[in-house]
């Protein structure tokens, strides 16, 4: 459905997107993951024919973004980061306008507006001015706008940014619903890791304009979760804590790959314990600490930040490459 081939986009001298290639099958929900400024929005803008690529290209639903932009535009729905709304229009009026613009025939228009209002749960604000709507409703009107012409491909740029937790959950549900109901192929960008796990089937990770990884969510979670990292804070009951002793004891636990001292104040010390893949060491760590006669003040898994994911992914890629070279 989507085929991106060595896509590059430069703004003057800065390279925003650097030779990215990936493919997306029909009906997939793909998460486009990366920190702010990674090139997510730029890539999406190229795919929606808003910006032309500097080199390379992309095929959307069988049409080239450079050579047949009109055909591509007919087949995509796009929700930019800031929903493109006209505050002086009523919701239904706005949806009709976008529908006509995207090529919905006059006879189908009223029906389509009804349908998307139902899907996005904005029926109760149909005749309200968009300028008076809350942020959550605006986002949903933005989504309704993107699906009004029942496009093959749906491109959503940070659809949950700036929403409150309840609205975020609702929006994710809606996106999943859309993939089921309309058989849309969906690309959504985000910088929130759990969002991808909850909504997407496939992940494309980019950083600083470069493709870091493309994988299915299960594989990726496996790769990331396999090696767990936990934060441990221990306290000696009588005076100074013997740091080297503590470090040694933690390192001896089977399955632990690395122990890093994070903080040390008097009798208290905090360590970060990394485990090998497929080893759960939390219980062993707790037991080791107690057996040594220390207090266990804290024991919690460290949530992996996006930065860590990048580090880990790039590192593991380098390792596999090195291993491949050695063989």
């Amino acid at each position, binding site marked *: 459905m989507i085929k991106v081939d060595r896509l590059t986009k430069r703004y003057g001298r800065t390279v925003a997107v650097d030779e990215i290639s990936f493919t997306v099958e029909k009906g997939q929900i793909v998460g486009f993951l990366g920190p702010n400024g990674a090139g997510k929005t730029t890539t999406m803008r190229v795919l929606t024919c808003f910006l032309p690529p500097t080199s390379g290209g992309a095929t959307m639903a069988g049409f080239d973004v450079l050579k047949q932009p009109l055909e591509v535009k007919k087949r995509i729905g796009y929700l930019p980061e800031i929903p493109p709304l*006209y505050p002086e229009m009523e919701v239904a009026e706005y949806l009709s306008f*976008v529908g006509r613009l995207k090529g919905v025939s006059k006879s189908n228009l009223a029906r389509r507006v009804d349908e998307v209002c139902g899907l996005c749960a904005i029926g109760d604000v149909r005749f309200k001015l968009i300028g008076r709507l809350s942020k959550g409703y605006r986002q949903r009107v933005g989504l309704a706008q993107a699906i009004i012409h029942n496009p093959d491909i749906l491109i959503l740029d940070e659809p949950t940014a700036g929403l409150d937790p309840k609205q975020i959950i609702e929006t994710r549900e809606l996106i999943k619903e859309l993939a089921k109901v309309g058989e849309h192929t969906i690309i959504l960008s985000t910088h929130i890791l759990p969002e991808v796990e909850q909504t997407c089937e496939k992940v494309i990770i980019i950083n600083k304009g470069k493709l870091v990884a493309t994988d299915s969510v299960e594989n990726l979670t496996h790769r990331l979760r396999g090696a767990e990292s936990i934060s441990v804070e221990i306290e000696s009951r009588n005076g100074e804590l013997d740091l080297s002793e503590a470090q040694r004891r933690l390192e001896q636990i089977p399955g632990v790959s690395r122990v890093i001292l994070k903080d040390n104040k008097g009798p208290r010390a905090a360590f970060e314990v990394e485990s090998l893949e497929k080893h759960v060491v939390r219980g062993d760590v707790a037991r080791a600490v107690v057996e040594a006669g220390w207090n266990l003040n804290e024991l919690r898994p460290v949530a992996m930040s996006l930065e860590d994911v990048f580090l880990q992914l790039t590192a593991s890629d380098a390792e596999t490459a090195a291993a491949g070279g050695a063989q």
Partner: protein
Amino acid sequence: MKNIWVLYRKELKSYFSSWIAYLLMAFFAVVFGYFFYAATAIFVSRGMQAMMMGGMPMDMNEWIVRPLLMNVSVIGLFIIPMITMRLFAEEKRTGTIELLMTSPVRDYELIMAKWLSAVTLYAAILAISAVNLTYLFVYGEPDWKPILVGYLGLLLQGGCLLAIGTFVSTLTRNQIIAVGGTFAICMVLWVIDWVTAYDSSTWAEVLRYLSVVTHFEPFAKGVLDTKDVVFYVSMIFFGLFLTARSMESLRWRA
């Protein structure tokens, strides 16, 4: 065509759902009313004098309509920047330009729709003056053909400045800059030939040719000259061509 119509209706509606259209209409009604009163007052007092001296009755077209049309062509210079300022600047500021440029719409359709809606609003504003002119037909017998030619001239002059304003609006996301820039260009095109009064060099000829108000003078007299029509039409095309180029560069630079 369908796209132009859909976009045209949206543009026109957004003019009339904000206060800008009504404000400009009210402004024009007051200013035109003032000039109309002034012109008829002079006409009446001069007419009385002429009658007492036993002269010929004065021509309404020459004494009222012509100076009024010249005034309107200058008032237009002030109104036009305010009509065009939001056309693209607003869409760029709110991000709706992304919706338009990712919809299956060609650039020229978008530009034509926006320009036509601006021309329509300008025509609607000019139409207010018809109320005043009706009085001339009620109390006198002016010739209606020169008046029509005059209004055609106003529309052509307006269309040309509106095309330039549309272009300026694509250059910025700030409406104040759009209005200021368009106004500056309108002013320059108005006064550009003032320095050429006793000059007959080629440069002076060029400057005289570029003055939008000079080309309007024959229309005000009721004279329809192809030369002036060609000037306005080619300026309209030039302005819209620049707009199209600017939109294209928007894609490459943005």
